[in-house]
C-alpha cells in the first residue's frame, strides 16, 4: 500500500470533509493492518500513519508530504489522538525542508489506482517507465489527464449518499458505549512503540551485551573461592556420576500402578505433622492464595475474551 494509493482510497470512501474520530479510528485499525516495513527505523505505528493520512485528506491536503507539513502544525492533543508523541513530531524546523520536498512532489504525476497501474503495465504504456527527459513533460500531461479521469470516476450523488450512510453506521458502531465527549486519548496501546523485545539487537545493544556478560561473570567471583577447597574432591565423586549422563538413553525403572480399589492398594499417606491449629491456619492461608489465583486467572480470561471479540 503506497501513501498515494491510500490517499486516493480515502477520497473515494469518505464524504468530502468527513473525518473519523482519530483515536477510535486508530484503535479500530490496530491489529488489522499488516506492517510489512522492516523493523529498524520504524518511528511510528502504521495505524498512526494511516490515521494522520485520513485526517490530512479530510482537511483537503493532496499528498503525503502536504499532510506531513500540516501535521507539523497540529496541536499536541491532536497529535496524541493520532498516536504520536508530541516531542518527537513537533519539529518546526523541518517545515523548510518539507517545502522543498513538496515543490518536488508537485512535479510528480497524480496517484494512480491499482487498476490503472495494471492496465497501463499490460498496454506497455506505464508512465513511470520513461527516460528522465520525458518525465517532467509527462508529469504535467499526466496530472491534467489524471484530474479529468478523477472527476469522471468520482462517486455519483447516490453512491455518495450510500457511502455517507455507511460511514455514519461505522461511527455509531465504534462509538457504542462511549459517552459523548469522553476522553480516549489516554487509552494505552497494547504494545508500547518502544517495545523492541522481539526485534534483533542494534549495534549499540550488541556492544552492551558483551560488557553485560562480563559484568555478570564478575559477580560469580565468590564462587571460585568458596569452591576451591572441595573442587578436586567434588570433581572426582560428582564428576564421575555426572559423566553417566553421557550413557543415554538411561534405563529407567517403570513402576506399575496396582490395579484394584485404591482404598485397598493405596496405603494412607504419611501422618500430618503439626497440631490442628497449625494445619488449619496453613490450609486456609494456602486456599486463600489459590482463591486469589483463580480470581486473577478468571479476570485474565475475561480480558482475553473481551479483547478477542472486538
Amino acid at each position, binding site marked *: 500500500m503506497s501513501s498515494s494509493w491510500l490517499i486516493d482510497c480515502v477520497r473515494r470512501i469518505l464524504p468530502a470533509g468527513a473525518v473519523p474520530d482519530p483515536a477510535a479510528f486508530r484503535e479500530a485499525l490496530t491489529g488489522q493492518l499488516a506492517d510489512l516495513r522492516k523493523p529498524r527505523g520504524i518511528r511510528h505505528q502504521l495505524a498512526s500513519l494511516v490515521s494522520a493520512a485520513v485526517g490530512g485528506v479530510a482537511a483537503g491536503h493532496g499528498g503525503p508530504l502536504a499532510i506531513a507539513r500540516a501535521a507539523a502544525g497540529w496541536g499536541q492533543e491532536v497529535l496524541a489522538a493520532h498516536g504520536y508523541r508530541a516531542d518527537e513530531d513537533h519539529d518546526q524546523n523541518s517545515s523548510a525542508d518539507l517545502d522543498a520536498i513538496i515543490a518536488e512532489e508537485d512535479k510528480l504525476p497524480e496517484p494512480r489506482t491499482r487498476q490503472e497501474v495494471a492496465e497501463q503495465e499490460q498496454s506497455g504504456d506505464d508512465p513511470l517507465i520513461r527516460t528522465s527527459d520525458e518525465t517532467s513533460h509527462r508529469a504535467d500531461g499526466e496530472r491534467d489527464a489524471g484530474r479529468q479521469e478523477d472527476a469522471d470516476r468520482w462517486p455519483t450523488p447516490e453512491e455518495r449518499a450510500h457511502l455517507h450512510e455507511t460511514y455514519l453506521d461505522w461511527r455509531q458502531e465504534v462509538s457504542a458505549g462511549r459517552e459523548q465527549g469522553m476522553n480516549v486519548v489516554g487509552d494505552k496501546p497494547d504494545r508500547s512503540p518502544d517495545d523492541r*523485545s522481539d526485534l534483533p539487537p542494534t549495534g549499540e545493544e550488541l556492544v552492551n551485551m558483551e560488557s*553485560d*556478560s562480563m559484568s*555478570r*561473570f*564478575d*559477580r*560469580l*567471583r*565468590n*564462587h*571460585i*573461592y*568458596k*569452591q*576451591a*577447597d*572441595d*573442587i*578436586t*574432591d*567434588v*570433581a*572426582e565423586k*560428582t*564428576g*564421575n*556420576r*555426572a*559423566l*553417566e*549422563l*553421557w550413557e*543415554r538413553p*538411561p534405563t*529407567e*525403572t517403570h513402576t506399575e500402578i496396582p490395579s484394584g480399589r485404591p482404598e485397598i492398594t493405596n496405603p494412607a499417606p504419611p501422618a500430618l505433622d503439626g497440631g490442628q491449629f497449625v494445619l488449619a491456619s496453613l490450609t486456609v492461608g494456602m486456599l486463600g492464595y489459590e482463591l486469589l489465583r483463580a480470581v486473577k486467572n478468571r479476570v485474565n480470561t475475561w480480558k482475553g475474551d473481551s479483547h478477542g471479540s472486538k
Partner: protein
Amino acid sequence: MAVSDQQVATLRAFLEGDKPKYNDLLADLDRKSDGLGYSALVTAAFFEAVDRRFSTQSPRADAVDYVADVRSRSANAAEDVDPRIAERLIREVLGDGSTDDVDGRTSASTKLYLLTALTIDADLDAAELDQFLGKVKKMADHMLSRG
C-alpha cells in the same frame, strides 16, 4: 595466577565425556595448588555454557524446565541435583538473584552436573570445543588476575 594447561586438559576430558582420561588427569591435580585454578575454570565453563544456552530474556520457566529435564536423565541426577539450587545457579548466571547462601561443595557439584548436560546438548565438535575452552580459559585467567 593463571589456569594451567593440566587443568584445562582435565576439563577438556570431562567435557568430552572421556571417563578414564578424565580420572587420570584429575588424579594429577593437587587439591591445594590446583583448587583455585580448576574452580575458576569450572565456574567460567558453567557460566559460558549457560550464557550460550539461555537468553537473559528467558523466563524462570526455562530454568525449571531444563533442570527437570536434566534430573530426569538418570536416577543419580534426580538424587544428586537439588532442583531449586540448580535453577538458582542458572538464573544467577543470567543476572537474576544470587547463590551466596549455597555452600561451595553443593555449588560445584550442581555446576558439574549442569555443565555435563549443557555440553552434551551443545554437541560441540573438536574445533568448537577448542574455541569454547579457549574462551573459558581467558575468562578464568581474567577472574584470577583480579584477585
